[in-house]
């Protein structure tokens, strides 16, 4: 069986049937951050807790990345196979806007306010066959 590991530990619950993003919440002021961090950017408190911040959100802003980024971008693509991808900030129920790649139907532009769902999918495959798993968002299917 193919081994699958997250691109970074602690970004999302994995493996999980219903994965969620993981952030941190300040024990003092209640502000949330993604990824989780030990100190609070808002009040400077050193007491924060890792919390799930949700799997469905709404789009706050977006763009389309139309050219293949240079290093440190690391996907399986070549300049020939590169396909433009969406990037946006997604407002999560946990009270924070998370920057994410967006998976959009070909040729469709996203819309501010649209509902999006978290997906965890292989992003690239290492030489030994290990799949690197990454989070992204897709339009909610009704």
């Amino acid at each position, binding site marked *: 069986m193919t081994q699958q590991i997250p*691109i970074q530990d602690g970004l999302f619950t994995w493996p999980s049937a219903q994965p969620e993003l993981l952030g941190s919440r300040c024990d003092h002021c209640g502000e949330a951050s993604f990824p989780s961090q030990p100190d609070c950017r808002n009040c400077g408190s050193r007491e924060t807790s890792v919390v799930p911040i949700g799997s469905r959100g709404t789009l706050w802003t977006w*763009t389309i990345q139309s050219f293949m980024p240079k290093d440190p971008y690391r996907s399986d693509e070549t300049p020939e196979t590169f396909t433009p991808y969406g990037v946006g900030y997604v407002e999560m129920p946990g009270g924070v806007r998370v920057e994410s790649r967006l998976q959009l139907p070909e040729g469709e532009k996203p819309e501010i306010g649209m509902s999006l769902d978290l997906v965890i999918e292989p992003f690239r495959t290492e030489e030994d066959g290990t799949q690197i798993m990454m989070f992204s968002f897709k339009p909610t299917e009704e």
Partner: protein
Amino acid sequence: MQFAYGGSQDAGNADALVNELGLTGLQFTNIWNGCATGGSSLNAAYTAIKSGEYDLGVVVGFDKHPRGAFNPKPAEWGLDDWYGEAGMMLTTQFFAMKTQRYMHDHGITNDALVRVAEKAFHNGSLTPTAWRRQALSYDEIASSMMVSDPLRKYMFCSPAEGGAALILCDAKIAKRYTSNPIYLSAAAVRTRHYGSFEVFSPSQPMQVADAPTVTASKAAFELAGLGPEDIDVLQLQDTDSGTEIIHMAENGFCEHGDQEKLLRDGATRIDGSLPINTDGGCLANGEPVGASGLRQVHEICVQLRGDGGARQVPGNPKVGYTHVYGAPGISGVNILTV
């Protein structure tokens, strides 16, 4: 000279210059502060003279970047590698997303984005030292390749090469060196607050705070005892068309949303009521990171001395303003007078 501050991102330490120019033993401090490097070098010199430690020095900035978009390394910005590997660490994306949201909130249309670039390349065509000296038509800009929606190829500045230097002295002795000195009435540098929307941010708080540009601008106006209505000519960081539009309001020169009409009416052209980026800004001069902030100040000096030639703002401008913004959320503002 008694001291120097200098900055460069990709062209080596600024003080390597003295190997070419001659060794003097004087204090030379390298400054590196992202796109705000020039503003920060000038601020350091301003502070050194104001403190009384020195009364004459030089500020220098230069750069030469590889072609194409900047490709910063996550670790240098306190981020983990996944953020860059996944393709989210691009300044172009940030400026596009900030512009996208701004257009949505304040009713700015693509027309305004095109007009900013059209003005920039027109002004560049009048500026002998500009990097792009060819004016572009509205249609050429509006139909250029989409780079990062809503921003097209000719709406972005390009990393380029260039340099700039300024000589500063105590105002009391300025007449010893020149018959028409320009006075630095205010220099202010500020950083981001919790809640301001900044480049290289894997997440943003829901609460919204003023951008560092807003706080730097207010601080500079207070220091100078002047307001936006007193400014005759200005330079605003125009990494891209959208950013110039946003910076017009963040620096206090109009209300959010008023840019659409101001641009349509030509207010920001050289002969308008609010001349912005009279030398073509970053769009026409490229972005040599270490030099850009100082190029802006140089252009204001040219304008205030009436040396602008074909791009001279009419009516003998007396007060000028410069503004830079850089990653990861730094702004520098200067106010200059004659």
